[in-house]
C-alpha cells in the first residue's frame, strides 16, 4: 500500500468506514522471494566493510589531527 492509499484509508477510518483493501498484486513466486531474501543478506558484508572503513577513517583522521 502506498502513502496515498494509506492516507485515504486513515481518512476512511476517521469517518468510521473500513479501510480499502490494497490493490491485488500479482501472485508471488515464493521460491524466488526466498532466494531474493537470501541474497539480500549478502549485503551485510559490504555494509560491514563500509562500517569498518568508517571507523578506520575516523581513527586515521583522529591521529592526524591529534595535537
Amino acid at each position, binding site marked *: *500500500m502506498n502513502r496515498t492509499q*494509506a492516507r485515504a*484509508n486513515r481518512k476512511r*477510518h476517521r469517518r468510521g468506514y*473500513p*479501510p480499502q*483493501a*490494497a490493490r491485488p*498484486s500479482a501472485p*508471488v513466486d*515464493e*521460491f524466488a*522471494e*526466498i*532466494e531474493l*531474501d*537470501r541474497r*539480500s*543478506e*549478502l*549485503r*551485510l*558484508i559490504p*555494509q*560491514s566493510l*563500509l*562500517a*569498518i572503513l*568508517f*571507523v578506520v577513517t*575516523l*581513527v586515521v583522521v*583522529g591521529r592526524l*589531527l*591529534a*595535537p
Partner: protein
Amino acid sequence: MDILDTAKTTATVIFLLMVGLAAVPIVSNAFQLLCATLHAWRNHYDLARPYAPRVAVIVPAWNEGNVIATSIERLMSLDYPPENLRVYVVDDASTDDTPDVVQAKERLYPGRVFHLRRHVGGEGKAHTLNHGIAVVLEDSWMQATLIMDADVIYARDSLRKMTRHLADENVGSVTAYIREGSADKTYLTRFIGIEYVLAQLAARRAQNVLGAMACLAGGAQLHSRENLEDLGRMDTSTLAEDTVTTIETQLRGRRAVFEPHAVVLAEEPQAVDALWKQRLRWARGNFQVTARYRHLWFHPSRHRQLGSVSFGLQWFSVLLLPLAMIIAPIGFVGLFLLDPPLAHTVFRSMWIGAACLYAYTVAFGLQLDPSISRTSWREAIAFPGVISLFIIVTAFFPGLFETEVPELLDVQVGEESRTTATLFIYLWISLSMLLAWLTKDIEHTRVGRRITPALIYLVGYGPLLCAVTVDAFFREIRHAEAHWEKTEKIGRVLG
C-alpha cells in the same frame, strides 16, 4: 615500605581487573556485530520453503478499542490464503468498546474472526494468551499459531515470510522484526526506532548465527502446533513470558528463528515515564528468567546452544551492563589516586575501544533499515549521549579540553580544575545513569517536560535503559510487587 608497595600493587591489580571486567560487554558486543555479518552466509533460508499452514492468530486485547479494528483489518488483508487464516481476539474483560468493535468484525468476517471474552480479566497478558491457546488447541484445524499484540500492524507479506521457516520441522517458532511505526514521531520514538534496529536486525541475526535466540518478540511469535502443544501454555510466573517461551522452545530441541524481512510495525511509548514502566517490566522479567535458568548459563552442550559461552556473554553483557558502568569509574578513580599516568592510559584505551565500537555500530546500524535511518540518524549518533561524545573526543585528543581549548580562549586552568574535570570524566558513565534516572523523575513537572528531551540527548538513551535495569535489579532484590502494566496504545501506527 614493602607492605605499602605490596598494598599499592594489589590495589592497582584490583582496579585494573575492575576496568577489565567492565570491558567485557564491549568485547561481547563487537563479537555480536561480527556474528550479525556472518548471517550473510549462515542463515535459515536454505531450509525455508513456501509453506502456508492454517494459522490461528491470537490477539490479546484489554481496552484496545482505539487500535483493534485497524489491526483486524490489516490481518484480513494479509497476503496469505484467507481460508488458512483465523483471528481469535481474546478480550480480557475490556471495559471500553473493544467487544463491540470485535463483534462487528466477527459479523463482517464470519468464520475468520472470533471474539473470545474473558469475564474476569486484569491478570496480565500471559493469562489472556492462555485462554486463546486453550481454544485453538482444542480444534485440530490449527497448524500454527501467531501470537501478536493488539496494536501492531503486519506488513502484507510478513506472515508468509515467517511461515516459510516452519517448513523445516526442526523449527518450533519464528519471530519478526518489530519496527517502531508511530506516525507522529517524537525524540523518544526515534531513539526506540534505532534501538530496535540494533537489538533486532543486528542482535537477532547474530543469535540466528549462534543458533540460540534470547527472545521472540512479544508482538510477533509464530509457533508450530507441535511446539505449542509441547509448551502447553504461556508462563505466568514471570514478567517475561515471551522469553520463557523462547528458551523452553529451544530446550525442547526446536529452533527459534528470526526473520529480518518480515516487518511488523508497533506503537511505542512517547514519554520517558511510560518507557520506564515498559522496560522495567522487561528487565525484571529478564532477572527472573536469569534466576530460573541458572543451571543453563555457561554450561555448553551439543544440543543446547543456549549454554554456550558466547550466548552467555551476550545475555549477561546486556543484563550486567549497568554494573560495568559502575565498576569502570571506580577502577579509573582508584587508578588515578594510585598512578595517574596509568589511569590515563587505561581510560584512553577503554574509551577508544568503546568509541570504535560505537562508530562501527552507528555506521552498520544505519545501513540496516534505511527507513529508520532517515528519521533517526541523529538519535543513532546521540545514543550514548552528547556528553559521552565529548569524552570520546577527549580520549582521542588528550589535552584538547585541558590545554588546547583554554589556550585558544586565553583562559587559565588551574591544577584543581584539571583534577576536578578529570574525575568528572572518569565518573561520567555512572553519573549518566543517575541523571537519566533523574530525568524520569522530573518529567512530570512543567519545567521537566520541557527540558526532558534535551536532557536525554545530553545524558544518552543508552544510560537511560541501563538506569531502568538498575531499578529493576533493586526491585527484584526487594521482591517488590510485580504486576503487569499495559503500555498505553492509542493507534498511532502508520500502516
